[in-house]
């Protein structure tokens, strides 16, 4: 069985290295196909492991080799396949296989085709390290590794200023959070003496609540960065500069959910500190609605989907914070399927429209791109949470969790967000595929994507449809062997039905409203004159609550200016100048006293005599002082010294 574990883990690495070999040479289709096949292998191995875990309930724990060992610290490269990690492995390998195949078509005209696959497979490898490690240090390797690959992939088209800027922003923001994570890891080590999950969590049961709270907070700060929670959320929308398959894989399905994974993995810790959990849940609910509002008005398909991702991450944290870890993980899985599907569909649209992203310039694309339309609509229905698609089961469960736990504020926030989600999802569907044809006038000639790209998306579509009602039972059986098996049931059946049907009706109404508003013939490409565009709310939302502006003006610029001050003023004018000042004292003394050495023997002899006299008199003075030291002391003491 270890063989399957290692195959699942290292096949992507081999694929990455294979593609990297070609990175210097022109596009070679092999560099795309081999990594995809290897990812398929990884997927099959993960499936075998899943079946094993599912049927026997056994988990796998291997230790490959020592990484760091010094003093009391011992960190191995250890990997664990249990119910949590096997779920994550399935999600990661499945989505990435689909994305790889899709990308062969999507990137086919890019001259850096080979490099793309090297980075993409490397990402999968890092992500697998992240989810499979059996200790916090290993998690951190994956954590930073996915950050690195995300940097390389956001800035993939490095000739674009916006892309490289976004890449650096993402990396640095993640670094800020990683500091929190690192401190969390240090706390874990010095308080429990180990970084292995099992040892650490076992030792945590005996720690006092204060320490645990700090550990929980610092680890969550790390999670906030990776999962782009407020206030570290701005990088995610900017990360849409990367190629669309990257957005689908990294910034929707896998990497951004790492934070959720961390909280779920540390469930034993967070179970001990419910206050931190409540904070996580509240922040999650806040981010859910906060991101959803920004998605309402945005005029960039990818950014809308990115905000929707952010919002769904908020849902997951809400669930995890309330202690419903298995629900969070379930939503993570379902979300990965339909969100990746949505992104890939967006990629098709983008290709068809020559990289145009403004849905107002599209309209009526449904005729030319039937397949994409069906897939994206399916994904949106799933995202909106309509019965019987995946979103219904996972998202409604989160609502129920909040309701049953009597967190009614969180519940109502999440409920409103569900309506918003449905609205903005179908807003872009309506704008892209339905209504008047607005693109022909602008000179676009859309065409459908390659057949195999659509087929590659098909598995995701199937899963987005069936993942909910088919898997929920089995999944619950499996995951609760490891996670707290809390069933969330609304006590009275009437309440339950009112809630469910009410939610469904609300969501369907939102969809209907979106269609009605955005399919009408009056939709024009906005030009900044309409009344809505000049309203305060619209401006606030389109500028993302002015948060990026705030960061730029009040953090980035001052830092840059302070750096310049540090260099030009402090370093050169103060520190270095004082060193040079000391040197200058000696130098000027030299310059001044060199006149003594005027070369005139007579003058020099006078100096010599003066020196001799001075030294002699000093000798006499000291001699006398030594001789009469007793008297001098007496005299001084008489003076009261």
């Amino acid at each position: 069985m270890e063989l399957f574990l290692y195959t699942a883990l290292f096949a992507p690495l081999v694929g990455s290295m294979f593609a990297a070999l070609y990175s210097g040479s022109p596009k070679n289709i092999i560099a795309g196909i081999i990594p995809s096949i290897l990812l398929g292998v990884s997927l099959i191995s993960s499936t075998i492991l899943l079946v094993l875990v599912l049927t026997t309930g056994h988990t796998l724990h291997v230790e490959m080799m020592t990484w760091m060992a010094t003093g009391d610290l011992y960190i191995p490269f250890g990997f664990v396949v249990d119910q949590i990690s096997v779920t994550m492995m399935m999600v990661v390998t499945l989505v990435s296989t689909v994305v790889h195949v899709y990308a062969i078509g999507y990137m086919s005209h890019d001259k850096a085709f080979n490099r793309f696959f090297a980075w993409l497979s490397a990402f999968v490898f890092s992500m697998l390290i992240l989810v499979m490690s059996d200790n916090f240090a290993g998690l951190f390797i994956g954590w930073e590794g996915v950050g690195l690959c995300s940097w390389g992939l956001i800035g993939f088209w490095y000739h674009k200023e916006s892309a490289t800027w976004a890449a650096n922003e993402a990396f640095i923001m993640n670094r800020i959070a990683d500091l929190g994570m690192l401190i969390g890891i240090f706390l874990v080590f010095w308080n429990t003496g180990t970084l292995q999950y099992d040892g650490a969590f076992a030792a945590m049961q005996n720690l006092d609540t204060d320490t645990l709270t700090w550990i929980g907070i610092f680890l969550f700060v790390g999670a906030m960065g990776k999962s782009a929670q407020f206030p570290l959320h701005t990088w995610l929308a900017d990360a849409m500069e990367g190629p669309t398959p990257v957005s689908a894989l990294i910034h929707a399905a896998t990497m951004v959910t790492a934070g959720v994974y961390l909280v779920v993995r540390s469930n034993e810790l967070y179970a001990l500190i419910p206050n931190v959990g409540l904070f996580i849940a509240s922040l999650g609910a806040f981010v859910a609605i906060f991101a959803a509002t920004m998605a309402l008005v945005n005029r960039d398909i990818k950014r809308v989907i990115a905000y929707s991702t952010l919002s769904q991450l908020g849902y997951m944290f809400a669930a995890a914070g309330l202690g419903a870890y298995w629900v969070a993980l379930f939503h993570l899985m379902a979300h990965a399927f339909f969100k990746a599907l949505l992104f890939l569909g967006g990629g098709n649209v983008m290709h068809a429209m020559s990289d145009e992203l403004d849905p107002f310039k599209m309209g009526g694309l449904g005729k030319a791109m039937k397949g994409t339309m069906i897939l994206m609509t399916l994904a949106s229905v799933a995202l909106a949470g309509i019965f019987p698609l995946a979103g219904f089961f996972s998202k409604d469960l989160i609502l129920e969790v909040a309701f049953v736990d009597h967190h009614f504020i969180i519940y109502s926030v999440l409920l409103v967000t569900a309506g918003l989600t449905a609205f903005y999802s179908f807003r872009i569907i309506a704008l892209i595929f339905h209504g008047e044809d607005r693109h022909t006038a602008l000179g676009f000639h859309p065409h459908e994507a390659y057949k195999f790209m659509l087929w590659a998306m098909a598995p995701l579509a199937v899963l987005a449809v069936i993942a909910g009602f088919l898997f929920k039972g089995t999944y619950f059986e499996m995951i609760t062997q490891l996670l707290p098996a809390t069933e969330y049931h609304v006590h009275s059946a009437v309440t339950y039905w009112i809630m469910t049907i009410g939610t469904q009706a609300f969501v369907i109404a939102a969809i209907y409203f979106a269609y009605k508003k955005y399919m009408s013939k009056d939709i024009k490409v906005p030009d900044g004159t309409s009344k809505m565009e000049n309203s305060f709310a619209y401006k606030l939302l389109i500028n993302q609550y002015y948060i990026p502006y705030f960061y730029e003006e009040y953090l980035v610029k001052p830092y840059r200016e302070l750096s310049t001050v540090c260099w030009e003023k402090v370093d050169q004018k103060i520190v270095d100048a004082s060193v040079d000042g000391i040197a200058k004292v000696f130098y000027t003394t030299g310059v001044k006293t060199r006149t003594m050495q005027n070369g005139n023997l007579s003058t020099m002899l006078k100096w010599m005599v003066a020196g001799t006299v001075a030294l002699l008199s000093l000798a006499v003075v000291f001699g006398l002082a030594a001789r009469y030291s007793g008297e001098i002391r007496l005299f001084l003491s008489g003076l009261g010294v």
Partner: protein
Amino acid sequence: MLDHILSILIFFPALAGVLGFVVNKDSIRSYGVAVATIEFVLALWLWFAFDNTVSGMQFMETIALIPTFGINYIVGVDGISMFIIILAAFFTMIGIASLGDTKDIKNMIITLLFLQMTMVGVFVALDAIIFYVFWELSLVPMLYIIGAWGGPLRIYASVKFFLYTFAGSLVMLVGMLFMAYFYYQATGQWSFALLDWYRLILPETFQLWLFVAFFFGFAIKVPMFPFHTWLPYAHGQAPTIGSVILAAILLKMGTYAFIRFSLPLFPDASVYFMYPIAVLAIIMIIYTAMVAYAQKDVKQVVAYSSVSHMGVIILGTFALNVEGISGSIFLMIAHGVVSGALFLLVGVIYDRRHTKMMDQFGGLAHVMPKYATIFGIMMMASVGMPLTINFVGEFLSLLGFYQQSHILTLLAGIAIIVGAIYMLAAYKKMFFGNVTKEENKNLPDVNKRELIALVPLVIITIWLGIYPKPVLGPINTSVESVVQLMHEKSITEEAKKRIPNLLEDITITKTSMKGAH
């Protein structure tokens, strides 16, 4: 031969350097490479013959010089110094191998060989006077390298480098003389032998004064804030090879000396000064990282980043526990590899464009993809990406210091943020975007000679990042003995508390190891 391997390691390059004067100018390069390679092989042999389980000194040699005053030629090596010696031999080798078209190449190679003698000498010396002699001698070849092959401000830079470090080490010399005098007072015999001094327990006030005296010598060498300003000038003016050796090896003398002298000789003073030094280290980390961000010259970015990383090393050293000190020694090696490589990389572009200003570049990734890749790997190593060599050192250093102070470690941890900021910004300016300058359109990518130097560094960076054990193991063994010695020597309550007693810890270690499996 193995009995005298350390003397051979010291004097072989110097002798070969003297012989180099009679070698033909055309064959001097191959001669230099051959000598440096033999030296490197000898250093590797030392590693091979080194007994990992012994914590004390190995391959010791003693020759009496001035026995009346206890000045003897004593050399020896342990896990702390061995890898820096190997690193020195390695960098001299690839430095000579990758030398481009230099004027007076013969003088350059001979100077480098002399420099190698002094570097090895510093790290194996176990007698304070011998240590001091090599310490000061190392200034001379570097002065010559900067002064003869440097940029327009070379005279100012080299004189500043020389005088500044020299002034610091004079204070250190006074400290050494006092130390020997105290030893004489305590035992009635003169001795400058370090291992003798280790046995001497000084009262706390004496420790404080001597610590400060030694501190000046070491801190200027490191260089610690606010004594760091000679470094940007030296790096800015030095030729590539000079910067590489300076950053990779010479700076390590300071941090090495902290571990060799300050900690075991003055454990109580080390504890007493731990917080002030940690604060200085944190200023060093954050402040110089900000200064690095403001630079326009890529070499200055790397130079200031060096100072910033040295701050982490200092912090790890003054963690005063095994994790931190091991980490700081490992980080010395890591920083040597990474910053050496970064200076070599800057040299590559300087050879082609004769400028180091970042606004002159832009879009280099289009024209020099291999160069961009190697630079990218080294940059990521420099910002402390896990599975690269730097991460192991930084992680352990910070982890170690966390035991002493939470809040200071949190502040020091900002290193990983600010480090990423200036490095990524510099990388973006140089490599990303479109090629805007006409001169950059047809730049040749890295050639074979440069790859000879760079590829091994990349391999080491990743290899030791994934599998640091061969290096970390011997370091750990020696550091444990240092820490135990410090614990036993310390006299104040505070120091006893801060410096862990490893003998008590053994049981805990075993249980935690069991828990780990």
